[in-house]
């Protein structure tokens, strides 16, 4: 049985308003956090828009559509969820205020959005370039300046979530990790890549006051299972083993051993002991002091390790071993029967047991990667410590997402005209990949203009096939087992889309971006199987293939004010026949952000609205470029500023919202299919 519901602008507005009201309490530097509790009693305290949205578990199809679009945007840009909802809600609100809600009018607005994005937005970069856009690259800045800009940028991410002194602490820790004596933006971006890919293994969480958090040099592994090496040695030789010492990896659960005689029984009992002893003897003769391995060790192996003075760290997971292989340039042993060559033996210059709160770790410094540091993050409860760690991860992601290849103008025009996400462009492993990627995303984007009703199964299949093509391409490119993962991930994302049945442009972006967004893992893990050293060389060269830069803007609604001014100018004060009305809508949409920010920054009082209108008049009529300071007053950021945000993020958010609106305005019916209950 099918039931249909007509979709009206009122519906869209109500749903987006509800979502905005829930999420946007956490908007702005003086925002409030949200405590989410599940029926099972788990608690999460967060200001992260995407976490709140996802845990709401929205059931309404339009709500889900919006949530999916927002999460797709977040996947690429790592931020901008609340701004997204503010824009969306305000646009629909302004449209509703115009009064003409006929489908004909809505479709005409939807059509003119594409044109607007093609014709007006690309020109705005030039406007921004001449108006206070900070272009970060290693050639232009001294290390101190670079550090200063990055710290300001990170502070913007951290401020809503932490108290002032905590923001200072963590931005310092963050910059010490990412700068670490380096003055090159390329190096910084490489580190951001490393942390984004392996953040799970480059930090530990504990409960305690925030101020106990610190950064330690080296890498933290789980504690020694046994610690028998010669304590006086300053540097240890180690091997990495992806198998168990007694020969067989995890035994079959229902394994049956056939015993016919005492000899066979003896052989069965003694064989693992012999294998382990042989292996340890071999290691001992190669002066190995430490085994890092993926499996557990039984008691008898520990006794043997004591005999040969070899320490063991067990139960490292696959990704962790990949990281150790990469950092130490030491390929792992897949079996104990393998010949141990010199290149299988790595060296650490320090390896010590350290304790944080109740947890014990082993701190290892590999000889050839002194730049690696690990975070020790403490929060008053486990949940808050977890929240802190996701915040730090988000900061790395923001840095990663804010970077673009140097030909920024071409990228931006790509972004706007082809409607691919900006961060796609940073993933430039090779020209081939880019061309393939663009091919796939542009094909998918062609589909954006289709309405829901026009999408046939055949076309969805075609989309899936194209994504699979990309996966196949990756697989061929790296000829590794690991490409399977990418393949399955891509199919996964396509399935997600087909379930939703409405191809949002932003989702399309993501699915194509996710192929490349995950590339470092594929790359690293696949290549390490072939040759660990090779990986290092490649990973160091990854960012050098092209020069990157990061475009930053002062925070405090600088982007919105300037763009709003620009749109007003370019549409001749909204009098232009083609874009006048839409320009006015987008103008008002943009101003929703400074309005919310202003009420967030000012202490509650009744004059807020009036004060904002005064500010708005001042900013719009002034020749200089202005924005809001931390007290909610206007100032000119060219003099001094202490917070920065990414231009790419802002632009991507606006583009993605406009694309979503384009889709939403063309929605006509919700067709609900009810399953008949068996009698």
């Amino acid at each position: 049985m099918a039931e249909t519901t007509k979709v009206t602008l009122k519906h869209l507005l109500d749903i987006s308003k509800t979502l905005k009201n829930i999420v946007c309490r956490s908007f702005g530097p003086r925002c409030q956090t949200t405590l989410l509790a599940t029926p099972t009693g788990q608690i999460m305290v967060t200001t992260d828009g995407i976490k709140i949205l996802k845990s709401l578990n929205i059931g309404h199809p339009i709500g889900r559509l919006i949530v999916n679009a927002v999460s797709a945007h977040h996947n690429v840009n790592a931020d901008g969820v609340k701004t997204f909802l503010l824009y969306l809600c305000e646009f629909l609100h302004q449209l509703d205020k115009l009064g003409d809600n006929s489908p004909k009018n809505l479709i005409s607005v939807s059509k003119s959005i594409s044109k607007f994005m093609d014709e007006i937005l690309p020109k705005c970069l030039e406007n921004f370039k001449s108006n206070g856009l900070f272009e970060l690259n290693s050639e232009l800045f001294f290390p101190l300046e670079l550090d200063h800009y990055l710290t300001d940028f990170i502070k913007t991410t951290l401020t809503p979530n932490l108290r002032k002194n905590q923001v200072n602490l963590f931005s310092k820790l963050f910059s010490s990790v990412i700068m670490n004596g380096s003055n090159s933006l390329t190096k910084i971006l490489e580190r951001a890549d490393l942390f984004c890919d392996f953040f799970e293994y480059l930090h530990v969480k504990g409960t305690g006051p925030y101020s106990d958090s610190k950064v330690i040099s080296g890498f933290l592994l789980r504690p020694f299972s046994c610690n028998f090496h010669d304590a006086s040695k300053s540097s240890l030789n180690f091997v990495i083993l992806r198998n168990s010492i007694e020969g067989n990896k995890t035994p079959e659960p229902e394994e049956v051993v056939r015993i016919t005689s005492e000899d066979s029984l003896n052989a069965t009992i003694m064989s693992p002991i012999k294998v382990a002893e042989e292996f340890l003897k071999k290691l001992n003769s190669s002066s190995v002091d430490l085994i890092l391995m993926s499996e557990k060790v039984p008691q008898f192996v520990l006794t043997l390790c004591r005999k040969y003075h070899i320490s063991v760290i067990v139960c490292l997971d696959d990704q962790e071993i990949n990281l150790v292989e990469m950092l130490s340039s030491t390929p792992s042993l897949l079996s104990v029967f393998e010949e141990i060559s010199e290149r299988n033996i790595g060296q650490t210059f320090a390896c010590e047991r350290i304790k944080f709160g109740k947890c014990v770790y082993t701190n290892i410094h590999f000889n050839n990667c002194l730049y690696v540091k690990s975070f020790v993050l403490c929060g008053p409860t486990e949940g808050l410590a977890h929240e802190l760690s996701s915040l730090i991860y988000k900061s790395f992601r923001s840095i990663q997402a804010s970077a673009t290849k140097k030909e920024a103008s071409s990228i931006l025009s790509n972004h706007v005209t082809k409607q691919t996400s900006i961060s796609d462009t940073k993933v430039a492993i090779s020209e081939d990949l880019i061309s393939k990627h663009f091919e796939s995303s542009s094909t998918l984007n062609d589909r954006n203009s289709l309405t829901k009703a026009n999408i046939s199964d055949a076309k969805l299949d075609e989309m899936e096939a194209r994504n699979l093509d990309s996966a196949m391409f990756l697989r061929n490119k790296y000829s590794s087992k690991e490409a399977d993962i990418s393949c399955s991930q891509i199919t996964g994302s396509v399935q997600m889309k087909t379930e939703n049945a409405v191809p949002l442009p932003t989702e399309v972006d993501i699915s194509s971006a996710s192929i490349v967004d995950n590339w470092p893992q594929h790359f690293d893990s696949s290549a390490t199987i072939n040759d660990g050293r090779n990986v290092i060389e490649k990973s160091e060269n990854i960012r050098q293939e092209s020069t990157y830069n990061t475009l930053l803007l002062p925070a405090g609604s600088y982007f919105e004010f300037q763009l709003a001014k620009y749109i007003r100018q370019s549409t001749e004060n909204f009098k232009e026949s083609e874009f006048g009305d839409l320009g006015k809508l987008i103008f008002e949409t943009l101003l929703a952000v400074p309005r919310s920010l202003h009420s967030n920054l000012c202490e509650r009082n009744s004059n807020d609205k009036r004060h904002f209108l005064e500010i708005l008049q001042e900013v719009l009529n002034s020749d200089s470029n202005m924005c809001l300071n931390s007290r909610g007053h206007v100032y000119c950021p060219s003099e001094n500023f202490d917070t920065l945000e990414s231009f790419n993020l802002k632009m991507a958010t606006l583009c993605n919202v406009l694309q979503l609106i384009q889709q939403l305005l063309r929605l006509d019916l919700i067709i609900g299919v009810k399953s008949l209950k068996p009698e």
Partner: protein
Amino acid sequence: MGSIEAAKNQSNLQVDTLDDPEVKASLATLRQIVSSCMGPHGKIKIIQNASGGPITRTTTSSRLFNSISLSKPVLKLVVNSVKSHVDQFQDGGLMACLFCLLLVESSVESDINRSILADLFQVFYEIIDDYLSSEECACKYEMDFSNLDAMMAFVQNMYDSKPFCGLYGYQLEEFSRLILQTFLQCIPDMASSKASFYTTRIYLLCVKHEDMNFSQNLSGLVLEYPELSSLNEKKLSVKRSLDSVDCDRIKVALINCSMSGDVESELNANCEVATGMDPDLFFTEKILSFCYQLVTKEVGLVLCQKVMHPRVKDYLRSKGVLFIDRLGAMPIPYVQDVTGASPIGLLTDGPSDGMFGWLDQVEHLVINNQSYLHLQEVDSCIITLVLATPEDDKLDELKTTTLGVLRNLERLIIQPEVLFGGGCWNTHIAAYLRHHVQENMESIAESHDCMESMVTTAADMFAKCLEKIAMVTSPEGMDHLIDLTNYHVWRVPKGEIKDTSSIVKSSSIKCGCNVFDSTTVSDFRFEREKVAAKVSKFDPTRLNADGISCYIVSDSLAVVNNALRIAINTASSIITMGQFIHDTN
């Protein structure tokens, strides 16, 4: 039969805010529970679940929070934070919880922007932290380990504030002496051959006994030994051998793998056996031959973490070797510490000499109809502390408190500073905070973009919360005064003093921590009085360690500092929460 995971139902969201009356009421209830548990006059709580489960009686934070289940997410957050503090310090949980709740409640009442308030709380904590760690601090002193009176007072205080332990008067003094003695005995000698230990060196053995005075400490390790009679103590003759320096001692083997002879569990697989074959027998023979090697190496005592086969037991018994099996994982590190043995995990290979441990003496003990083996080694500083109470519930309470006391004493070695307790440090630092904030008003207001009046109000609110903690530990029917010299708290029966000038200057009238008497201070104010906006001077008397009497009430500085920090961090997170979304589906 397969099962399909049901799809997640659509959410049914309930959205609350901190200002909801229901949330406020739940905060107040938890505050009342916590505050009424605190201090020597605290009331014992009985906790039972709705379906009539076992009852728990307690006044300690760790047992209280482990037995109650909370439905309000905001309370869960508070309790989880406090638990993280208690896990680390085993003390100060009630204080942290109360302070956090007081801060949250007064912030909700206040009309200051909560985000600014949270920032100011952090500033106030930093001011307090700086003061407490500075030399200037006049509410702390350094614990002198040679001053046993002060140490005793410290231990007694902690037991005194846990009324359910049931220690009063002479019994309290005896028990505190026992704990202090145990602690001092377990500190390793500087010249000791052993550099590091696997354990904290004190093994707690809890026994049910009618007489609490039966609690005692025994040098060495006491392990359960069901092999022998649990009625009479038996004289044991244990095989002795000569150690590396030719002393006549008992050789110990510690085995951490199974000696049950079960091949299937050893191989972690099922066996398909030909007729006439018995793999278990074969494997037992292997274990027996291992035991034979132990016997030839003159081992006198075999300690096995897991199960021993009866034939293995028989064999050892016949050779006059003592053994304990099924030790479990918990006592193994203590055995390693007391004997110096390394665990043996391989039974098919002969044990090397370096893996054995040594004991001076092994004795049979019977405590409350339970048979135990007492492993003694003169050089080791492992002590078994036997805690005896008539009830299980009380035993748990005593154990929790004792762990806290020992932990605090241990921490005093590293950080020997303690605060004047009995509520005095609270009122003292509240006064310091008011004074310091007044002095630095401009810079604080400017750095946080807020008005000076806001800072004053916030500081006063914060200081009041600190003072309230000092008040809740008093018995009922008391008036509270704060002197204006040292800012300590003074308790007088309600209504006895109408005017602060009428207080008699006498050396018998003491402040909360028993350090100062009323002759040393000039003026007082009632706690409930409004504090003058401007605190003119802050120049309290600084005591040196010599002036510390055996009646002093003190609190560990490290514990207090962390409790304050946790409370403030948690309160800051809570007051900046705009909404609590609870999925009830």
